[in-house]
C-alpha cells in the first residue's frame, strides 16, 4: 500500500534478512529453559544476548513472590495510577528503590523507555535545554523530542565538547540539563562521569544519569556508575530499568530534589498508561532484594564479562574499548554480520546483531550480553565458537588485507 512506500529502503533490507530463513530481528524462542538457555526450532541455544545480567529471571524467590502477587492481586491493574489508583506494591517498590539509592523520591514507570520519555519530556520545559551525549539510547532522544525544550547533543564521552555546548548556552534563560548513560548499550563503554560532574558544576547545570545497563553491574553495592565514581551527590536524577539486572520490566527515576512528586501529575507517560502488573512489581521487589543481599552475583557477572571480553580480544576480534557485560565484536559490514550471526546460531549460540543507525560511528556489531548465570564452560564455549566461525569465514584475513581492522578499532574506541 502507498502508505508504506516511505519504508521501501527498510523493507528491502528486512526482506533480504527474512529470505535467509534466519532473521535476527524476527526470532521467537519456543521455550526458555533457564537464564542462559532456550529452545529454538527444537534445539537448545545458549542465550548470550538477553541483558539478563544477574540471571534473576528464574530466581526461585522472585518467581514465588510474583506468583503469590498474581494470586492475591490478579493479572493486571487495568489502569493508570493517577486515574485508577496505585496498589500497595507500587508504593512499596518506590520506597525500596529510594532506600537503595539513598534518595528521598522515586517514581516508577511501566517500562524503562517510558521512564526516559516521561522524565525528559516533563522535566525540561520550553525555555530549558537538554544536552545529550551523542550515543544516547533511542528513549533519550525520543523523550527529548516529546518535550518542548531545545535539544543539543555533544560528542560521545567528551567533557570538552560538553563544556563548549554549555558555554554557547551561557546567558540564555532556562535550566541546562545534561543526560548521559552509565554504560552504553552498544559498545559497553562507560561515561567519564567525574569529568562531566566538574563541567556540570562549573556551569550550574543539572545532571541525569541513565543507569539502565550499569545498575547491578557497577559500584560497591550495585547502584551503578555514579556510585563507582563516587559522585552520587552531584547526580540530580538517576534513571533506571527493571528489565536488565532486575529481570522484569519497568523503569524508575530517583532524586533528592524537593518538589519531585509534582511530576506524578504532570508527566504524561506516567499518567496516561496502565501501571505495572502486580506480578511484575513483586518479582522486581524481590530481585532488588536479591541484588542487595547477594553481591556475589555481581562478582560472577564481572568475572564472566572479563573472561568473555578478553577471550574475544585474544581470538583477534575488535571489540568495544573496555570489558563490561555488554561485549560487542565489530563486523566489517552488515552482510558479514548476518552470515556470522547465522553460523553462531547454527552452533547453538544466540547473540544480537546491531547496525546503524542504532549503533555509533556507522559500526555493525555482534552484541553479546554476559550473565552472572553463565558457567565458565558456557563462556569458554562461546569464545571458541566465535573463534571457529571467524576462522571458517576467513574474517580476520579479510579485515586485515582490506586494512579495515585498524579503522574499525579506531571507530570503536
Amino acid at each position, binding site marked *: 500500500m502507498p502508505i508504506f512506500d516511505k519504508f521501501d529502503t527498510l523493507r528491502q533490507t528486512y526482506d533480504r534478512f527474512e529470505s535467509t530463513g534466519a532473521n535476527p530481528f524476527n526470532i521467537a524462542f519456543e521455550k526458555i529453559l533457564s537464564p542462559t538457555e532456550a529452545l529454538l526450532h527444537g534445539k537448545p541455544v545458549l542465550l548470550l544476548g538477553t541483558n539478563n545480567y544477574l540471571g534473576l529471571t528464574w530466581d526461585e524467590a522472585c518467581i514465588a513472590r510474583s506468583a503469590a502477587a498474581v494470586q492475591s492481586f490478579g493479572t493486571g491493574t487495568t489502569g493508570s495510577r493517577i486515574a485508577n489508583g496505585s496498589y500497595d506494591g507500587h508504593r512499596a517498590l518506590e520506597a525500596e528503590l529510594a532506600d537503595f539509592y539513598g534518595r528521598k523520591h522515586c517514581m516508577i514507570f511501566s517500562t524503562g523507555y517510558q521512564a526516559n520519555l516521561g522524565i525528559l519530556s516533563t522535566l525540561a520545559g520550553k525555555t530549558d535545554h537538554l544536552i545529550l551525549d*551523542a550515543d544516547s539510547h533511542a528513549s533519550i532522544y525520543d523523550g*527529548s*523530542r516529546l518535550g518542548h525544550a*531545545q*535539544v*543539543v547533543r555533544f560528542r560521545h564521552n567528551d567533557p570538552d565538547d560538553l563544556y563548549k555546548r554549555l558555554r*554557547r548556552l551561557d546567558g540564555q534563560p532556562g535550566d541546562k540539563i545534561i543526560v548521559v548513560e552509565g554504560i552504553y548499550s552498544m559498545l559497553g563503554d562507560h561515561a567519564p562521569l567525574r569529568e562531566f560532574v566538574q563541567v556540570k558544576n562549573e556551569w550550574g547545570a543539572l545532571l541525569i544519569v541513565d543507569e539502565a545497563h550499569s545498575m547491578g553491574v557497577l559500584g560497591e553495592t550495585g547502584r551503578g556508575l555514579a556510585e563507582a565514581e563516587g559522585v552520587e551527590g552531584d547526580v540530580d536524577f538517576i534513571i533506571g530499568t527493571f528489565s536488565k539486572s532486575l529481570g522484569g520490566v519497568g523503569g524508575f527515576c530517583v532524586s533528592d530534589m524537593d518538589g519531585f512528586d509534582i511530576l506524578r501529575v504532570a508527566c504524561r507517560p506516567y499518567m496516561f498508561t496502565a501501571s505495572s502488573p502486580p506480578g511484575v512489581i513483586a518479582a522486581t521487589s524481590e530481585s532488588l532484594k536479591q541484588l542487595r543481599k547477594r553481591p556475589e552475583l555481581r562478582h560472577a557477572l564481572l568475572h564472566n564479562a572479563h573472561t568473555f571480553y578478553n577471550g574475544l580480544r585474544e581470538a583477534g576480534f575488535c571489540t568495544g574499548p573496555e570489558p563490561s557485560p555488554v561485549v560487542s565484536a565489530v563486523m566489517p559490514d552488515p552482510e558479514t554480520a548476518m552470515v556470522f550471526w547465522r553460523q553462531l546460531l547454527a552452533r547453538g549460540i544466540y547473540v544480537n546483531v546491531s547496525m546503524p*543507525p542504532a549503533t555509533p560511528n556507522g559500526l555493525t556489531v555482534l552484541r553479546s550480553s554476559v550473565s552472572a548465570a553463565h558457567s565458565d564452560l558456557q563462556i569458554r564455549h562461546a569464545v571458541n565458537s566465535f573463534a571457529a566461525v571467524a576462522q571458517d569465514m576467513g574474517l580476520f584475513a579479510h579485515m586485515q588485507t582490506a586494512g579495515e581492522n585498524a579503522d574499525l578499532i579506531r571507530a570503536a574506541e
Partner: protein
Amino acid sequence: MDTAVSDIRDTVITVLKTALQKPVTLSDETNIVRDLGLDSVAVMDFVMEIEDRLDISVPLDRIAEVETIGDLVATVSQLKRGA
C-alpha cells in the same frame, strides 16, 4: 563577527565531502538524506563538524527540518548571526 553565507556554504560543502569519502557534486538543491544516502545519525554527526568549525550548536529540531544543503546553510547562517 559576521560570517558570510558563502563562507558558511563552503564550510558545509567541505565538511560534507570529507564525511562522504567519495567524490560527489553538491549544490544547494542536493537532498542530504535522499541524494547522499546518509542516515539520521550520520547527518547529526556531520553537523557536529560544522558546529565545531563555526562555534555554534544546532538544536536537533532545527536539524530535523533540514532537507537540502541550501536549508542547512540557511539554518546555520541564522544561528551564527544569532550567536
